[in-house]
């Protein structure tokens, strides 16, 4: 695979003295969807800001398709689009004029047909003459996406595209991302949610406290991280796990009120049906079943504490 974007040794220490990025090396392939996964304050927005020219890196170099983004900024920037995390819009502008503005700003000639298409793709065509301040939050986010697409970028950054967005729009967003990928656009998005990375990305990078902990193919990562827990709430609490259930490696939780089973959600056989069969054979009564994914926090704890596996 050919990289379209390469970051090498990129660090950032803000004027406040806070080190937001600690030497990031990352290579993004042409045409892929890359998800940057990390908790609040991990450095996702900082990293995007550095590539897009909003934040000055403390050290390191970034190349976009062979161009140094600092030295050759014109060539790089005219092909990169950014949808920011914050809903920053020109309140008094009309939807259509703000999208035209973006196209011009990025050095492109006016193209009404293209702007119409972009607005239609984002279901904004009916709102084209509305002032931005008259739109709902979800619509404003779509306006920001339309602005970023107006100059037909080859690389698109989506900084938390689904934050504060309802289920329907979230699904639309996922569709849009896949459509863009089909058209050949490389996409880098950030998210707090594993599900979202799972749904959209080809590769996932996990970042925490300014460090890129790992970068992997999504499928491989999901194997590694896709652990689920099943809690069986018991009618009668237990003091030890019955030896007949040893095969499943269960633990007791909630002072013996719950049997906890950890399984691999991606595996062919989860072992759940046989476990449940065995439980009823043994006459153990339960009132509830609950499965949950391991949270992002668990994963970070996992990654940080087992660095040899993360590498």
């Amino acid at each position, binding site marked *: 695979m050919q990289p379209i974007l390469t970051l090498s040794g990129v660090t950032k220490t*803000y*004027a406040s003295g806070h080190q937001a990025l600690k030497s990031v090396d990352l290579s993004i392939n042409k045409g892929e969807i890359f998800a940057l996964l990390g908790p609040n304050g991990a450095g996702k927005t900082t990293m995007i*800001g550095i590539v*897009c*020219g*909003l*934040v*000055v890196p403390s050290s390191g170099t970034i190349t976009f398709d062979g161009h140094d983004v600092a030295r050759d*900024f*014109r*060539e*790089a*920037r*005219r092909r*990169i689009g*950014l949808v*920011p995390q*914050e809903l*920053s*819009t*020109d*309140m*008094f*502008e009309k939807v259509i*004029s703000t999208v*035209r*503005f*973006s*196209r*011009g*700003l*990025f*050095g*492109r*000639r*006016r193209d009404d047909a293209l702007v119409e298409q972009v607005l239609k793709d984002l279901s904004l065509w009916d709102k084209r003459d509305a002032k931005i301040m008259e739109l709902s939050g979800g619509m404003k986010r779509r306006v920001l996406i339309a*602005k970023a697409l107006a100059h037909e970028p080859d690389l698109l950054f989506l900084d938390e595209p689904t934050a504060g967005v309802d289920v329907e729009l979230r699904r639309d967003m996922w569709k849009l991302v896949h459509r863009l990928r089909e058209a050949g656009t490389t996409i880098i998005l950030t998210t707090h949610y594993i599900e979202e990375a799972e749904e959209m990305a080809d590769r996932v990078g996990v970042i925490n406290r300014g460090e890129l902990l790992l970068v992997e193919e999504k499928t491989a990562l999901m194997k590694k991280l896709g652990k689920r827990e099943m809690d069986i709430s018991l009618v009668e609490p237990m003091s030890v796990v019955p030896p007949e259930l040893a095969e499943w490696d269960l633990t007791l939780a909630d002072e013996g009120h719950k049997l906890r089973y950890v399984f691999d959600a991606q595996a062919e056989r989860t072992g759940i049906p046989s476990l449940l069969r065995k439980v009823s054979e043994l006459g153990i009564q339960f009132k509830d079943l609950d499965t949950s994914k391991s949270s992002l926090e668990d994963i970070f704890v996992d990654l940080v504490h087992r660095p040899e596996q993360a590498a």
Partner: protein
Amino acid sequence: MNLPGVWAIYRFEMTRFGRTFWGSIVTPVITTALYFIVFGGAIGSRIQEVDGVPYGAFIVPGLVMLSLLTQSLMNASFGIYMPRFAGTIYEVLSAPVAATELILGYVGAAATKSMLIGAIILGTSAFFVDLKIEHPVMMVAFLILTSVAFSLFGFIVGLWAKGFEQLSLVPSLIVTPLTFLGGAFYSIDMLPAPWRTVSLFNPVVYLVSGFRWSFFGRGDVDVAVSLGATLGFLVICTGIVAWMLKTGYRLKA
């Protein structure tokens, strides 16, 4: 050169002015009319002539300058401060727009608007007094140079300001007093000796004087000195803006 980019910014700014067009026009026209009534009418009946020029006509260049300076400053400082404040500056920063193009767009638009207002005030004045312009080319040159220089100055203020207070501080605390004390409504020759010397440290004196020379062929200081001072101010502001944009001062973290 990213001409569509410059045009996009310029148009955006001109549209913003367009939204407040009538407000922007009515205010200077009314203010000018009031100045003529108060200064031209009330005071002008006592001061007949200054340097052989009827007092009503004498204050016209100063009046135009006063509006030109404040308008340039306010338009340009708002133009860049607002996107910083609203966060929309992210787009301009991420676009393939070089510092010169950024300046052309924002400062160009601010200067255009203040020149328009300058012309409107000049037009309004013609209703009140007989105006003859001895050096029309130089008059236009001063109009353009001053608008551009003070729009650059406003751009600096808009980049520097951390809040709306600071934004309004510079025009009200520095520019307006300097203009009033800069011979907009009198000749500094009319001042007693020490004040005349003090006035020579006021940069606005040179602007008003040069502008007045282009109308009446006479000014407080030599026209070459005025022109030099105006150009000097322009160069200094350009340098500061260039440095600010190069380092990303208050634009980039």
